[in-house]
């Protein structure tokens, strides 16, 4: 009985400790998630949809709405970059499958759009655990698929890396200020008198 109580106490304590971190890191409100749509040329617009969700997460609502109304269809890295440059949008991208880019994007809470399914589809990377080089703990990644943006899809980090690298390793993100994290009530330092 004592052991059970001890176990429950430790579990509760662990749960309280873990509660502080928001997961996924890029927790885009459901109303801001852009679903995929068919463009004027009859192609899916997954690159645009993922990028629009990220623009909204980074507070660029009008740019996102403009993008939704003016662009669509399939994209390749070069053409998409030229569109972004033409519209004076601050962005960063890689086409070489460099994992550091994904780590940076999620560490700075910006997220990024990444290729999957051998380059046929693009989704939004919303969580990417940093590699702590410890084989005993499993690191995870999460994506938001614009074909069903109602839920996050979680998978082991290595699975996502393999998928991404076998899909030409293209990742792109706007570079603005991400939404602020949820208040961490466990570590409030100062709260103004109410």
């Amino acid at each position, binding site marked *: 009985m004592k052991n059970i109580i001890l176990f429950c106490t430790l579990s509760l304590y662990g749960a309280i400790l873990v509660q502080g971190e928001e997961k996924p890191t890029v927790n885009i409100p459901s109303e801001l998630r852009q679903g995929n749509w068919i463009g004027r040329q009859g192609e899916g617009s997954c690159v645009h949809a993922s990028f629009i969700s990220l623009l909204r997460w980074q*507070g660029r609502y009008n740019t996102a709405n403009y993008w939704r109304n003016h662009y669509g269809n399939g994209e390749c890295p070069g053409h998409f970059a030229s569109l972004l440059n033409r519209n004076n949008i601050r962005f960063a991208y890689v086409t070489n499958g460099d994992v550091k880019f994904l780590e940076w994007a999620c560490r*700075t809470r910006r997220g990024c759009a990444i290729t999957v399914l051998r380059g046929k589809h693009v989704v939004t990377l919303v969580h990417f655990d940093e590699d702590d080089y410890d084989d005993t703990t499993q690191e995870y990644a999460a994506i938001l698929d614009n074909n069903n943006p109602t839920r996050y899809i979680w998978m082991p980090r290595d699975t996502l890396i393999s998928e991404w690298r076998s899909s030409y390793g293209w990742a792109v993100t706007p*570079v*603005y*200020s991400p939404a*602020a*994290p949820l208040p*961490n009530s466990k570590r409030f330092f*100062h709260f103004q008198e109410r």
Partner: protein
Amino acid sequence: MKSFLCFLLMFCFVLVSFNSTCIADNSNGIAVEERVVNLPQDQNKWYISIVGGGLCNEGRCDLRFNMIMNWFNTNPNLKSLKNQVHFCIITVGTPIYKERYEKNISGIPTVRVQKADGTVVYEAAGKYIPLSAEGLYGAIVDASQKAQGIFPLLPWRRKCGPLLPWRRDMDRRLDANPSPGPCPEPEPDVQPYPPDPDPQPLDDGGAPELPESSHPRLRVILGVLSALLGGGIGIAVQWKRTYQR
């Protein structure tokens, strides 16, 4: 001679091509075709959220919100602070407000300063927001000092006392009429979002650089203490010289 010149030319060519390869490989950034992009390592940057706006809230206009926004564009200290943090303008009624702010703020408008991990360093809402830009900056500086473990030396200064009588009266008046001024009719065709703000400067910044102390009280206390100590030592030395011979 010709072969020597040819060898030299070839050597130079190899050197140049080798050097260019090295630059591409060793660059501190991500190689994107021919471009190199230095990504901002700003994961430790603080966040400032200004929550408010919308047109009218229950018949009252959020004039305070506009005023606070204006402070961050005109007051040099707040403007500098704004450029060192992720500055988020949150409009009431938007999805980001509903999901991330509505449940955890106590009033409109709200000014919230957070560390990168979400720790709230300073938060004030409604009438508790200081009445001037300087006051707000001072409050943020004080709060950030407390967040970094810098407390006033004197214990009785650590807690705020009860409201002073003239402040109570002012609070009562604010309660009675929290948002003076007429409320314009909402326009029929209203954009749900204000124009996208100018992008924040990109840098690798962490916590904002704030002055060590916005109030001279610590310096004054230290100054008085050292003056007393110096005076005491001087008197003691002089007393010894005078009376112990």
